[in-house]
Structures are given as structure tokens and as C-alpha cells.
């Protein structure tokens, strides 16, 4: 089998999720006795291609065009379709990034194929690859397989594989081959403009050692002061899952998850957070995770070190009091 990994650059730097997917590909290749190729796409990407060639891959494909300087879904789809048709991989793997979500399903469909997105793992069973992904917001896992003939398309969630396990090339460098693609300005219908961040955030949650995070379980904005009092007693910062910030109950800068901040504090106290994957990717690196939730089946408990099944409105004030007592003693 031939595996092709589509790597991703973000504003002129690697998106590190690329290396996790490359590590996944190396592992699948070992199980299935396959060869891995890695692809880098953009304008002037020679240095990136050379860096990829130092990894244990059979070949690096360098796809360059002036019109690929800025990412557009049209440009990437037109170019990558040509590469896939000529390179004929069986399995095309992507990191599950916002950019990949934006074009990869369409790329697969242009070739009449489907994509299994956002996978957290795989198994190789009886000569068949089984991809594991979450459904129902992480409440269940699902085994998904491809039907029909290759090429197959799949993406791996960030954190699903470890980039530090990526193997280097045994003899130094893999060959780098440029693949010419034909692309014209008419192909590209959308026009990317300025990149920007919203008003500079007053708080840097990535530096906070102690975080108290609230989710839907907080129910109403009137209840937030209770969580804030707990955060104060702990000496930590208050944060939230996406729905709370969508509602405007806390500012967006306090949002943890794939669309917000990624944090790795000493302590992460999750109050009424179910643990949907979009949230978990932003906090699973925390050293100690405490989850308090009324639903004993909430997926947050899968990653919690300490769990309390109960009513946060009873536990928050009790915990605030216990923390204050511990401080004064």
C-alpha cells in the first residue's frame, strides 16, 4: 500500500499536527507493510521539503505554484487532485486542522471518494484498516471502515499520535521530487485577505498554572460569580468551554478548546463540562484534571484524575470554603 501524508504550513511555519499525522502514517505503514510519502504544498517550500526528507519516508513530494502562496480551497483542491491522480496513493492522510476541514472532503469528492475525518486512532484487523473516531460529542467511539476502492482519505485529530515518535530517515535523506501542477487564477474563486487577531487579550491562560473552567452545566450567567469565587479561592483563572463564550457569558479570550486557547496548567478544574472533543483538545495536557459533572457518563471523566459525580451548585460553594480554610490553616 502507498500512503501519502499531506503536511500543512501555517503562516510560513509548520503546523506541528503535520508531524503527528506523519508518525501515524509510519505506524500504519509498519502494520501494513506500506511506503509513506510526505507532501508539502505552497510557494517556495524547498526548505520544508528538505526537512521532511530527513524523516523516515520513501519520498517527499514538493508541490509549488505562485497561486499556492496563500491557502485557498480551490487552489489546493485543483493542485492536489492532479498530484493524487499522478502519484496514485492508496491512503491519503491529513492532520485534522481547520484548513483540512475546509478543503479535504471536497478534494476526496472530486475524485469520487469519501473521507473519514477527525480520527483518533486506527486498528489493522484481518487485512483491513479500521478507523476510530468519536461521535455524539465524544460520548461514543465509532469504528469506521472504507467501502470501495482506493484512494481513501482520512484525517487524524491533533494529539492522537505523538510527533516525538516520528522516525528519522535511516540513511539521511529521502529523495525530494517536485510535482508540477497546472493552476490558473480563474480556478481560484475566493480571495483571502488580511490575517488578524481580535483585540489583544488581557489574560494569557496559557501561562496560568491553575484554571477553573465552566461549561453548559453552569446554566445561567447569574451563576458565574460562584465559579469565579472558587477560582479566586484557588488563586486561579476562570475559563470556559465554547458554548459559554458563544452566549457571551464570558469573553472569547477565556475560551479553551480547538477554536480557543490550548492550555497545560498544573490543575484544570472542569465544572459542568461534558468533555466534547473540541474542548478536550485544548486542555488534555493539564497535569491534573478534576471533573465535576452530574452525568456520570460525561466523556470528561475519561481524562479526569479525580472525578465527582454531583451537582456543581452544591460542590462549588463547599469547595470554595474548603480551599479558603486550607489557605488559612
Amino acid at each position, binding site marked *: 500500500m502507498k500512503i501519502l501524508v499531506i503536511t500543512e504550513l501555517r503562516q510560513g511555519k509548520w503546523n506541528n499536527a503535520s508531524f503527528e499525522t506523519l508518525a501515524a502514517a509510519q505506524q500504519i505503514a509498519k502494520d501494513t507493510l506500506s511506503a509513506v510519502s510526505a507532501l508539502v504544498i505552497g510557494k517556495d517550500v524547498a526548505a520544508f521539503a528538505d526537512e521532511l526528507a530527513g524523516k523516515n519516508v520513501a519520498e517527499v513530494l514538493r508541490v509549488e505554484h505562485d497561486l499556492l502562496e496563500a491557502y485557498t480551497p480551490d487552489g489546493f483542491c485543483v493542485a492536489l487532485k492532479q498530484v493524487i491522480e499522478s502519484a496514485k496513493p492508496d491512503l491519503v492522510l491529513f492532520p485534522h486542522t481547520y484548513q483540512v476541514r475546509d478543503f479535504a472532503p471536497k478534494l476526496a469528492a472530486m475524485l469520487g471518494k469519501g473521507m473519514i475525518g477527525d480520527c483518533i486512532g486506527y486498528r489493522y484487523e484481518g487485512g483491513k484498516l479500521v478507523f476510530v473516531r468519536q461521535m455524539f460529542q465524544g460520548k461514543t467511539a465509532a469504528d469506521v471502515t472504507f467501502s470501495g476502492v482506493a484512494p481513501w482519505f482520512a484525517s487524524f485529530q491533533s494529539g492522537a499520535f505523538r510527533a516525538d515518535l516520528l522516525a528519522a530517515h535511516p540513511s539521511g535523506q529521502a529523495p525530494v521530487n517536485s510535482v508540477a501542477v497546472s493552476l490558473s487564477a480563474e480556478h481560484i474563486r475566493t480571495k483571502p485577505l488580511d490575517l488578524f487577531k481580535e483585540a489583544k487579550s488581557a489574560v494569557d491562560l496559557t501561562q496560568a498554572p491553575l484554571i477553573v473552567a465552566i461549561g453548559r452545566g453552569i446554566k445561567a450567567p447569574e451563576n458565574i460569580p460562584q465559579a469565579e469565587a472558587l477560582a479566586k479561592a484557588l488563586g486561579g483563572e476562570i475559563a470556559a468551554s465554547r458554548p459559554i463564550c458563544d452566549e457571551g457569558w464570558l469573553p472569547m479570550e477565556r475560551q479553551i478548546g480547538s477554536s480557543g486557547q490550548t492550555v497545560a496548567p498544573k490543575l484544570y478544574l472542569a465544572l459542568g463540562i461534558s468533555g466534547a472533543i473540541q474542548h478536550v483538545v485544548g486542555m488534555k495536557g493539564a497535569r491534573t484534571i478534576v471533573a465535576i459533572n452530574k452525568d456520570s457518563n460525561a466523556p470528561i471523566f475519561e481524562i479526569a484524575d479525580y472525578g465527582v459525580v454531583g451537582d456543581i451548585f452544591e460542590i462549588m460553594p*463547599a469547595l470554595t470554603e474548603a480551599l479558603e480554610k486550607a489557605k488559612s490553616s
Partner: protein
Amino acid sequence: MNIIVCIKQVPAKDAPLTIAGNWIKESDIGFEMNEPDSYALEEALRLKEKHGGEVIALSMGPERVKQTIKEALAKGADRGIHVADDNFAQLDPLGSAKALAAAIRKEKADLVLTGLQSDDHGFGQTGVLLAGLLDLPHATIIMAIEVTDRKMKLKRELEAGWFQHMECPLPAVLSIQSGINKVRYATLKGIMAAKKKEIAAATRESLGVSHEPTQKIEKIYVPTKTKKTEFLTGTPKEVATKLVEKLKFEARVI
């Protein structure tokens, strides 16, 4: 400006899920409008209020899905299209997108909106696939839409707190990010008005869609735990005291 909003009906957020083979047991649970899609619907209604035209709510699935279409009509959509399919949950993303695309092709839409992803399958592919199948430009994870002169200026969310402005011609397909707006509730007047609104029926057969599945859900199951969780029990006060001790002397994080 004529807008089609793709809306999925999913199990209610607090519905207890019972796994049955490669899906869940659907009897005895409530269903509701997929929350990300409610933001897409709201955005469509706001664009219509500003620029005129019509909002069509398009949904696929078994008979019960009509209830969600009615909810969209009550909120202000002008008419609905129901692609009836009892096996919708087992369709792969490309299969459902093909059926939706066929229904969309019969209309004269300037804009097709979807939510970011569904709270059940969570494939998050429909909008992008529709763009491919309908050969329309698209953009995803949209946080703001400004329409001027057959063109849109969009604000797209990127990762790690970054955003990007972009231009996109019409017609187009957009996937809307949750939180782009504040979703309205249906008014009593809206609910009454919805009773007179039309819901057109279609099937994959009547739309002439043929599709070989590209993937299959083999089974679903409760995920295996990767971490050992110590559960603390007792009264709130006891739990709080235990937790503070654990954090102080065992985890040593406070």
C-alpha cells in the same frame, strides 16, 4: 437574496444514549435542531431581513425531521424541503451531500448555509461537499458575513485565536461557526404562521440520486478509558474536603 439552510435533526442534548449495533436506539429519546445549524438558520434570517428574498429550510431524515423543519418555519423560514430517508443515519457524508445537492439544484439559491458540524455524527463535511458537488465557491467557520453587490466579505476563524477576512462571490456555500449570532426563539405568531407554510417532500429516488457508499460505521461503543479516575463521594462538604486534600498532598498542585 435566496438562501437555503441545511438543518439536521439530532438527539436532544440530554438524551440518554443506548447503543444498538452501529447506531443508537432512536425510540424513547427526544430530538432537536442540531445546535450549530440553528446559528446558520439565524444568519440566513438576518441576511433575508437585510437584503430581502427567501429562506428555505432543507432537512433530511425520517418523518420526525419535519418537526425541526416546522421549528425553522416558526422562526421565520419561508418554506421547507424534506428529503425523506429512514436510513439517513447510516448514509456516509458524501451520500447525504449528494441528496442535499440534488434538492438544492432544483432551487435558485444565491447562498447555501450549513452549520459547522452535527452533534451526532460530527462529520463536519456537508458544506464543503455541497460546494464540490454544486461547483460553487465556499468558505467555512464563518464568523461574519457582509453582502455587497453580488459579493461577500467574510470573517473566517482560523486556529489559535487567528481570523482572516476573505472575499467570496455569490452564489456560494458557507459553513457557519457557532456563536456568530444570538439565536432567536420562535414567537407564538411565528408558530401560527408556520402552520400555513409549505414543506415540500422529496426522496433520494425522486431526486434521482444514486450513490455507492464510501464508508461504513461498523459499530459504536462507549470509549475505553485511558486514565484511571479516582471518584470522590460523600456530601458536598466531604467531597470538597477530600478533593482539597488530594490536590494538596497527592497531586501536589495547590
